[in-house]
C-alpha cells in the first residue's frame, strides 16, 4: 500500500472536516483578542467560551494577558489611572483568573481537545 507523500498533505487527510473547522474557529476567536502588536484589544472571550480554545491558544492568551495586565498596572502607577483603564484592567484580570482556573481544572482532567 502506498503510504502517500510525507508532509502536510498527508497529515491534512487524517483530520476530519469538523476538526479542521473547530481549529479555524479557535484561531478566529484568538485573533479577535490579540492584535498584531500583542496588545489585548477587542471583546474579551466569555468564560463559557474558554473550552473552545485549543490548549496552546489558551496558553498564549493567558501569557499575553499576564504581560498586558502587568504593563497596564505599571503604566497606571507611572502615569495615573482613569475610569476606563481601571475598568479594562479589572476585566482582563478577571479573565486571566478564569483562564488559570479553567487551565487547572482541564489539566487535572486531561481533557484538552
Amino acid at each position, binding site marked *: 500500500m502506498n503510504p502517500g507523500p510525507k508532509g502536510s498533505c498527508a497529515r491534512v487527510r487524517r483530520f476530519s472536516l469538523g476538526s479542521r473547522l473547530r481549529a479555524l474557529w479557535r484561531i478566529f476567536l484568538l*485573533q*479577535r*483578542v490579540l*492584535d498584531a*502588536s500583542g*496588545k489585548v*484589544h*477587542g*471583546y474579551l472571550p466569555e468564560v463559557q467560551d474558554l473550552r473552545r480554545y485549543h490548549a496552546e491558544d489558551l496558553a498564549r492568551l493567558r501569557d499575553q494577558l499576564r504581560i498586558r495586565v502587568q504593563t497596564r498596572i505599571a*503604566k497606571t502607577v507611572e*502615569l*495615573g489611572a*482613569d*475610569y*476606563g*483603564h481601571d*475598568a*479594562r484592567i479589572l476585566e482582563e484580570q478577571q479573565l486571566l483568573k478564569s483562564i488559570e482556573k479553567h487551565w487547572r481544572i482541564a489539566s487535572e482532567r486531561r481533557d484538552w481537545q
Partner: protein
Amino acid sequence: MSDVIGSERSSSLEAKVASELSALVKDVAIGAEFPFASNAAVCYALELFLPALLRVRFAEWKRESLDGFRIASARKVGPSAVELAGICILISDQTVTPFCAHLVVSPDTSSISAYRVRVGEAGHGPLGISGPDCNSSGAKRLLDGLMARMESVRWVYSVDSLQSPGDAGERQT
C-alpha cells in the same frame, strides 16, 4: 496648560507627552511625516492625555478613555508642533473612531503650549461615536480611507487651547 486639566498627575502626564513627542520629531524636517508606531512610548501617555483634555469640557468623557491608536499620518507641522491623525480605540466598547490631534510642545519641552484635538464621527455606542470593532476589516478601511476625506470629517468632539476653561463643551451632532 496643565492648569486646564487641573492636577499634579495631569501635569506629569503632559510633561511625558511633551518630552516624548519632542524626542520623536527632533531630527524631522518641518512638513515631513515621521514614523509613529502604535506601540511607541508616547502612545500610552496620549491614551490618557487626550481624554483628559476632552474631559475638561465634555462630562461624558469622565467614563470613557482611549485604548490605542492606529496612525494614518504623523507629521511635524512646525518647529515644535506635530499633527497626528488616524483612528483610536474607545476603551469602553473596543470600537474605533477617527481622531486628529494638533499638539505644540513648549520650547523647554516640559509642557504642551497649544493643542487642538478632534475625536469621533457620528456612530453608535455610549458616546455615539463608536465605529467598527477594533480588530475588524471595517477598522482597517476606516484607517486607510481617512486621510483622503480628512477635510470632510464631521467631528463630534473638538477642543482646543483657545477655548477658555469655563467654556461649556459643544458636542457637534
